[in-house]
């Protein structure tokens, strides 16, 4: 006698594509008296590449180890795929990690390294062979399964480590500064390949780096960390254009930090008085609530400083003296000094500037504040 209506099990919860792959709630980690991570709350979305970016000692690797289960948080909890794993040991977490030194098993060949995670999952041998060769093909190492790990170049070892981590189809892929051991050319190439690999696998990825260039080019979102605390979570473009504080502003890309200025409204403009002689104007913005006479810090990117043409009137003109030029191929970084403002950096396309204005020459620089970051002093 079946009573379908009553006995029907509840439908399995539908996989919510927008659900978070990993969630950290109020996670702290102390090493003795030192707080390596301080109350971090973070949701990592399904399928995104999220970068933990910060200087060394900012807690980014500790955070990664907490997700992988190698470190137990002092406070807070972690969810992976909706399941609380705070107390789950690493081998039951289904994360795939690429270590900074790759940590390949030296006593196994390439195939055995990549197959390790699958054999731990008791996958039948025949299927392991198929999965491994597919993973090796994905990282462009097809046919190298029989090689000893020692016979591989750094770049190849990196690929084996990647293949070993993705072949188990982890709930989240954890990359701990995976490119830092490679030389510069190879690093650029691997960045592109990492991006392609992510497009093919769609794996949720947490990427740890101290290299802001890597972070900007690889991430969907970047978490900037300093001293164990989150400074800002934003998409690369927003992070570059709208840093939330002085730390983020100076950490992401080059930026000129002008001396604190007093601000006044003047029609539709805001005027900043940096020194008695220098006043800069900026069109008022909705996102900026500044009171008159309030002190503010202004951050301007080097590309927003220009050399004024001799005849031009223009706003925000400052007389400067050229200090040095650093030629960088596509552009030149020019350092100038302005009385009262200190050193300023300009990014000027090409290299003609070097011959036109040798160090010591006087030039007029315009400072465009349209995209500047202005942080009011509390």
């Amino acid at each position, binding site marked *: 006698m079946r009573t379908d209506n009553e006995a029907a099990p509840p439908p399995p919860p539908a996989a919510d594509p927008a659900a978070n792959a990993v969630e950290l709630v109020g996670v702290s980690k102390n090493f003795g008296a030192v707080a390596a991570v301080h109350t971090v709350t973070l949701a990592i979305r399904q399928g995104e590449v999220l970068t933990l970016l910060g200087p060394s000692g900012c807690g980014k690797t500790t955070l990664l180890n907490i997700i992988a289960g190698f470190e137990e948080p002092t406070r807070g909890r972690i969810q992976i795929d909706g399941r609380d794993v705070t107390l789950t040991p*690493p*081998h039951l977490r*289904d994360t795939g*990690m690429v270590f900074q*030194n790759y*940590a390949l098993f030296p*006593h196994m060949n390439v195939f055995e390294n990549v197959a*390790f995670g699958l054999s*731990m999952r008791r996958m039948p041998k025949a299927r392991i062979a198929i999965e491994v060769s597919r993973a090796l093909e994905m990282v462009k190492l097809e046919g190298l399964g029989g090689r000893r790990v020692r016979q591989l170049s750094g770049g190849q070892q990196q690929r084996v480590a990647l293949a070993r981590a993705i072949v188990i189809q982890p709930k989240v892929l954890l990359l701990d500064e995976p490119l830092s051991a490679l030389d510069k050319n190879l690093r650029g190439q691997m960045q592109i390949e990492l991006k392609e690999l992510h497009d093919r696998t769609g794996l949720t990825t947490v990427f740890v780096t101290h290299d802001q260039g890597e972070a900007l080019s690889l991430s969907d979102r970047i978490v900037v960390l300093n001293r164990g605390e989150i400074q800002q979570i934003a998409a690369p473009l927003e992070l570059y254009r709208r840093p939330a504080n002085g730390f983020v502003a100076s950490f992401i890309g080059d930026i000129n930090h002008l001396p604190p200025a007093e601000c006044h409204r003047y029609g539709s403009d805001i005027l900043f008085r940096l020194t008695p002689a220098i006043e800069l104007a900026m069109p008022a913005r909705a996102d900026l609530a500044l009171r008159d006479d309030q002190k503010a810090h202004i951050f301007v990117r080097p590309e927003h400083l220009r050399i004024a043409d001799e005849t031009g009137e223009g706003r925000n003109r400052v007389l400067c003296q050229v200090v040095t030029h650093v030629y960088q191929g596509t552009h030149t970084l020019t350092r100038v000094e302005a009385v009262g403002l200190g050193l300023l950096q300009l990014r000027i396309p090409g290299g003609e500037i070097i011959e036109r204005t040798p160090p010591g020459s006087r030039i007029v620089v315009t400072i465009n504040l349209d995209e500047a970051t202005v942080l009011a002093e509390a």
Partner: protein
Amino acid sequence: MSAVGAGAPRRRPFFLPFLLISLIAAGLFLAALGDVLHYSVRLFIPGSIEVGGFTLANFARLLRPIYRTVLLATLIISFLTAIFTLLLGYPVAYALVRVRRGWVRSLLIVLAITPLFTGEIVRTYAWILVLGTNGFINSILKALGIIGAPLSMLYTSFGVILALVQFSMPVMIMLLATAISHVDRSCERAAANLGASPLMVFWRVTLPLTTPGVVSGTVVIFAWTMSAFSTPQLIGGGKVLMLSNLVYLEGLTNLDFPLAAALSLLALVVAIGSLGLMRPAITRLERKATLY
């Protein structure tokens, strides 16, 4: 050993004195060995410490069943000692390397290494007190009512192996600890990350990566035990004979120097042979498990 760089461009100020010292040491050793070699091919004259002319009869005498039995017993005791030392030493060495608390580590080091600094005789007598008919173990077991009659442990191979294992532990622990400390922890983390339980991490990563240490530890203890003398002499009490005891018996009791010399050479060949086999064994395993 390979410091004999022919035509080395740089002068090595300490090279010559070191070479001299090692040459003197090697010379003394070879002289003693030459003497043993010399005695082994001379005729035994019963009742005299003088020896006769050249003969190979001493080596033929080694083939007698009694000597074969002792050689076999020595090999078995040495093998078992090496294996048990390995089994007991590995956990200690592992803990020694991996324990985080400083004082626990210091305690382990002290416990592991102190036996080296108590003399062999003192230690062996301590074992006699522990293993004897009215010794420590038997008294406790009797007091607890677990046994009625005392167990015989003294004068047995069991007692000899037990004492030899304890004697060998410090060396084994040091060899294993070195190997274990060379294991890259991130490899173990990687294995755990890929789904290996702690036991699997040990079995598939830590143990394979320490096999060179395991092999060298086992072979060194095996070869070392081959020459054990005072432990089987005192604890075996004449009932457990190893090669060294036989050498002593033949040489100093029967004054049969030629036979004693032949027996010594036999022990030497076995010990050197097993050490010689160690190199290829490790190389073979290293091709699988690379430490360095």
